[in-house]
């Protein structure tokens, strides 16, 4: 193995990359912009105003306090609905995305809780749930509203009980209460960035280099395909780690995200790079014109980006879209990254990383097998 060439090829690729402002933009600045823009939209909500319909069935001091808190949130337009009206009918008629029903008995539950505080022998272990009605077709708004409502409920629980949850929400969310949208979004952006740079990188190697005669020249030179692919993969890993680092640094500095860097994160970055490079090689094998190959790359990356839970939690999508996501490699990458670096759920990390490794082995091996330098 000519490791001197492998090293030299890596350096040449890095040089070429650094000298291409457009490529540097797509690798570094684009994910940063995504993080900043989406983070600004979903973390502060300052720039948008969302309607939230509130139906107060309790009409007590505490429920009014809750509604008042919601009203004070900038960017949130709280519409109070008469408790006698049918929430679903109202949402349909007025085309509203979400309605929060404050349950009757909120005040009573609070009083019961306070009473138990004066009776050390008794323990309060009841929870009263709010109900959130949602229109599934408007996932963006629901996602933001859910985060906001969760954070307000969390704040109330903290203020009253110091941590015990006496108020809850009866709709399950994939985003646990301790995490915000940006925590969900950041690993998705990492997966998405690695996917695009690896797929398009592979396509470029297999179509542009073919068109430019470089593959034909390589065939007549004392270099093996494994040396060539190894050096290119090292470069793809370099890009993957650069973009991941940049995204993480911005996530931490700007949005104060708590990130867990562990072996699984490293393993996922490497496996993801191999996985999508393999997919790129497969595209490059069958679509030889560069422009067509770029379009084919787009046809694969864009639907995958939206359907694999990159921007929005999968469980908020319609069932049939959720089924599609289950067969998309990026879904496993996103979930693996989230569980490894944000949620810290070891079992799920192991589960999703396993899938990524299997996908990676399958696609990379097929990609290498299908990659051809010679002509028919």
């Amino acid at each position: 193995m000519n490791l001197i060439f492998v090293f030299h090829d890596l350096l040449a690729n890095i040089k070429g990359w650094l000298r291409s402002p457009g490529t540097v933009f797509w690798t570094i600045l684009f994910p940063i912009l995504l993080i900043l823009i989406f983070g600004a939209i979903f973390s502060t909500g300052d720039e948008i105003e969302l309607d939230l319909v509130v139906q107060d069935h309790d009409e007590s001091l505490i429920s009014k306090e809750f509604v008042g808190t919601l009203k004070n949130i900038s960017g949130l337009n709280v519409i109070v609905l008469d408790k006698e009206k049918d929430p679903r009918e109202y949402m349909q008629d007025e085309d509203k995305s979400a309605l929060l029903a404050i349950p009757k008995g909120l005040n009573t539950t609070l009083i019961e809780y306070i009473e138990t505080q004066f009776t050390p022998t008794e323990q309060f272990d009841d929870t009263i749930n709010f109900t959130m009605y949602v229109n599934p077709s408007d996932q963006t708004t629901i996602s933001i509203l859910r985060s906001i409502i969760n954070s307000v409920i969390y704040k109330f629980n903290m203020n009253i009980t110091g941590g015990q949850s006496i108020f809850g929400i009866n709709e399950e969310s994939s985003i646990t209460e301790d995490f915000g949208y940006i925590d969900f979004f950041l690993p998705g952006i990492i997966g998405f960035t690695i996917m695009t740079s690896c797929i398009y990188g592979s396509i470029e190697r297999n179509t542009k280099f073919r068109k430019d005669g470089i593959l034909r020249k390589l065939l007549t030179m004392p270099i093996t395909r494994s040396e060539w692919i190894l050096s290119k993969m090292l470069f793809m890993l370099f890009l993957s780690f650069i973009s991941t680092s940049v995204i993480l640094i911005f996530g931490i500095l700007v949005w104060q995200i708590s990130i867990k860097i562990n072996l699984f994160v490293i393993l996922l970055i490497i496996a993801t790079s191999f996985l999508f490079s393999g997919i790129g090689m497969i595209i490059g094998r069958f679509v030889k014109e560069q422009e067509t190959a770029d379009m084919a790359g787009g046809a694969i990356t864009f639907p995958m980006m939206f359907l694999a839970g990159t921007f929005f939690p999968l469980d908020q999508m319609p069932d049939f879209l959720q089924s599609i996501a289950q067969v998309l490699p990026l879904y496993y990458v996103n979930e693996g990254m989230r569980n490894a670096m944000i949620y810290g759920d070891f079992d799920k990390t192991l589960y999703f990383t396993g899938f990524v490794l299997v996908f990676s082995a399958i696609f990379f091996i097929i990609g290498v097998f299908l990659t051809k330098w010679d002509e028919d």
Partner: protein
Amino acid sequence: MVDKTVRCPNCGRIMTCFGNPGEVIKITCSSCYLEGKVTFNKTFQSKNIAIEVTNLKKKYDNLVAVNNISFKIKKGEIFAFLGPNGAGKTTTVEMIESIRQPTAGNIWIDGKDIKTSFNDVKEKISILPQEFHSFEKLTVKETLVYFSKIYKKKADINNIINAMDLKDEEKKYYKDLSGGLKQRVGVAISLVNDPDIVFLDEPTTGLDPKSRREVWEVIASLRDRGKTVFLTTHYMEEAEYLADHIAIIHKGKIIAEGTLDELIYKYGDESILRIQKSSSKKTANILKENGFNAYTEGNGDIAVKIKYKERILEILSILKHECIEYENIDIRRSNLEEIFLKITGSKLLENGE
């Protein structure tokens, strides 16, 4: 084709037979009629041959792109493989470079059968593919260093830069070079391993006449450095200017082969020597009397058809002897374009069609 001398095991008669390397032929003794077989060695023995191709064929479904061609290229010569687009030039050269697999036939480079030993010759050859573009964001020098790292045998990069007259461009990015300079860099890249054989596939296609001339000078310099050059081109004047040996390919077949002089002698019309503004009206008759095919053209110039260049001196000495003065003498001989037209009945246009 190679020849082999054999002795009949029955009567002892010595015979010479012809065949292709690796071929087994049946022969019958011309004296005792004993039948036998002669096997020709797979490798050719000549140390002066850089490339040998025998019975090479490439078929795509019903299309025969290259149809049973054979040729030899001597070491140190520029071999021009000339033909219009679609004639089979690139298919042939890419089969020799192992980029395409032949349907049939044998190829030897430096005495080695490339079917089994192509890896052994990779260090000795170098190619400039058709429409080659290198890495855009590397400088000329970085590009040469990059490709040199692939080879064990390395030429001095600075020497190549100087020889290819690229000193002023060595720090420029490849993408910023003109078409002619890019091709010059392409040739320079093909020298980084100090190869014995250089394949240049249509190196001047798409270049303006000035850039084309510059690349010609670079190619000519390769011969001076002792390289064997396999040049494919559809430019007649390129082959005329550069080639020591020319093979003309048309519809997958080699229709003519030889040096330029040989091709002109074999296929070309007689050269025409034109005597402009002769002082005597009898010039044509005098030359006719001396056995020349001479005639007076409409503008009064005397045209003489000559087959051998040695006869030019003879004409000049007659003119001197007869005290005939003239303003100018012009000699025009057939070119490859005319030869191609004569053999194929079709023109080979500038764009190679």
